[in-house]
């Protein structure tokens, strides 16, 4: 039943890129458009740059984490630790900065430390042979614990971050915040690489059928290892941007983020069994979640009802998308 969904995703060559109708993401785009049109009629504030900027800002940093997660899902993995790693990167960079390091070096070390967490998970998955779920679940707990150890439970206030560094998260080119630019660039690069780069094709092959990939000489353990590292590194990168935006490093930050991120990737067509998924789709999934959340606030829906409506729209979107897609093939 999943086969049809998977089928068309990785085959997309450069040529198909422009044929919207045949895209995996067409259904999602249609749902998004429908929602936006409805919202435009429902609220005069919806169709404004201010609102779009607000929505974009609200998911652009998480969007970077979604990129890593999608690639990891494609290789057949999953990472429940991303929320903790985002926080870890913030906390490590923040603590180093408070110890006197300049924020750029501190951030690099923070990202590096996140990559190391990824490497440790990669080790347990590829060398010890545990699965991604349980490994990253343990990592989620351990890394959150590390955040507590480093901060001693209190948010690090990074009020003294130099303006140049704060600008990453808070500055903008005219009307367009840097954060959005960074997000778009990261997404564009990885979307392109995932569709076109030889190295990333191996990710699809490994996720689709690890044995077949091995028979073709692909070092699937290496592939899985590096994708795990990449996912954590991107989470670390996101953490540093969050630090720049909020000027703080809170030890509880990012708790529960992982489910949102996995949901976005899955709505966008990534399979939990590996072998399929696109960055573009995953970002659309993220955007859909974000539009729904902010629409509910715009429409001033009661807080008690917000969760329920959000869940129903999520379910409806996935069902419609599934329906549109399975009819086509």
């Amino acid at each position, binding site marked *: 039943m999943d086969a049809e969904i998977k089928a068309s995703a990785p085959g997309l060559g450069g040529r198909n890129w422009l044929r919207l109708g045949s895209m995996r993401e067409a259904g999602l785009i249609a749902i998004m458009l429908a929602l936006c049109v409805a919202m435009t009629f429902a609220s005069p504030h919806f169709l404004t740059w201010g609102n779009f900027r607000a929505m974009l800002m609200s998911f652009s940093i998480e969007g970077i984490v979604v990129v890593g997660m999608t690639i990891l899902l494609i290789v057949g993995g999953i990472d429940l630790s991303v929320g903790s790693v985002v926080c870890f990167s913030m906390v490590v960079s923040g603590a180093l900065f408070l110890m006197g390091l300049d924020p750029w070096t501190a951030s690099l070390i923070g990202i590096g430390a996140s990559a190391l967490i990824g490497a440790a998970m990669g080790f347990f998955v590829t060398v010890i042979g545990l699965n991604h779920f349980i490994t990253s679940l343990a990592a989620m707990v351990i890394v959150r614990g590390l955040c507590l150890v480093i901060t001693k439970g209190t948010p*690090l206030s990074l009020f003294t971050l130099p303006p140049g560094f704060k600008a990453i998260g808070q500055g903008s080119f005219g009307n367009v915040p840097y954060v959005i630019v960074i997000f778009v660039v990261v997404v564009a690069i990885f979307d392109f690489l995932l569709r076109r780069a030889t190295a990333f094709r191996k990710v699809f092959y490994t996720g689709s059928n690890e044995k077949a990939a091995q028979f073709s000489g692909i070092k699937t353990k290496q592939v899985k290892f590096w994708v795990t590292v990449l996912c954590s590194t991107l989470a670390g990168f996101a953490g540093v941007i969050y630090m720049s935006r909020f000027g703080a490093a809170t030890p509880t930050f990012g708790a529960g983020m992982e489910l949102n991120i996995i949901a976005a990737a899955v709505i966008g067509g990534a399979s939990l069994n590996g072998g399929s998924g696109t960055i573009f789709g995953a970002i659309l999934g993220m955007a859909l979640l974000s539009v729904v959340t902010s629409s509910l606030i715009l429409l*001033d829906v009661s807080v008690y009802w917000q969760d329920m409506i959000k869940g129903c729209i999520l379910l409806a979107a996935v069902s419609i998308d599934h329906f549109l897609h399975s009819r086509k093939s």
Partner: protein
Amino acid sequence: ANPFKCEPGEKYVMNVMVSGVEYWFPVYEMFKQAGQQFGCETEYTGTPEYDVNKQIATFDQALAQKPAGILVHPMNSDPFIEPINRAIDQGTAVVTFAADSPNSKRVSYITSDNVAEGTYAADAVAKAMDGKGEYAVLENPGQDNHDKRIAAFIGRMEAKWPEMKLVGRAASNQDATKAYQAVLSLAQAHPELGAVFMPEANSAIGAAQAAKEGGGKIRVMLADVNAKILDMIKAGEIFGSVNPNQGMQGYMGFMLLWLAKHPELIDPMNDARRSGFNGMGVPFVDNGFSIVTAENADDFYWDAYLKRRGTKGIEE
């Protein structure tokens, strides 16, 4: 001899949920100092998770060691009835703090007045806006003391400031990114939004950032503080905070426990002996709260306090 002394091995325990976060630290600090003054042992326990079931497990475990008393912050009131009653029955005194379990046999309850906090916060915001304008609240539906603060805030606005209009309620669930998104969206829907109130500090970091990006015309008001919040208050990015008097909560919490454990010290003129009621039982204590503004923010830094006092906080 001095009657205000503990027996050797007399131990008092403080029990909380999400034990790794700093709200509890100043409470425990004074709990501990009071204990030291009495020559008692103290211990800080609880679950790092936000989970009532796990908290009860740690409470039960502490109980299995038969301490003299437990100062507990019950995450939810009724689930603690049975464990607290069991503790009382085995001779361990129980005092609740910051949240209560009114139907249990706990001896005392100490808290700041959530209603007063919400009311004060409303007055402060309304005054700064000349009693006129739009405001919104960020909520964490389901947590009792937070809900009380919100209700009091809104209630006060409706009663005393009729021209203050509530234009939006969003759930931020103590999450900075959700608060950030919520405030951005609220600001879009209500360009005239002048203030936003939230009952805790985690959301405030995100909310304040969003307010700042929106041009700084939204006043962010909250309850509780941490180093980041204090910095932002000092920089004028956050309007202000109401902060419970955590020190008194801990100190008086200890005292209440100690008293409850030593009813033999007094012989009151009442029916306590006949009814078996604890003559030292004080039903309720209000530990008060402070209003944190740019002027006094410096006094609330936990790190600075630890350094000044030379203590190791919860790790002793």
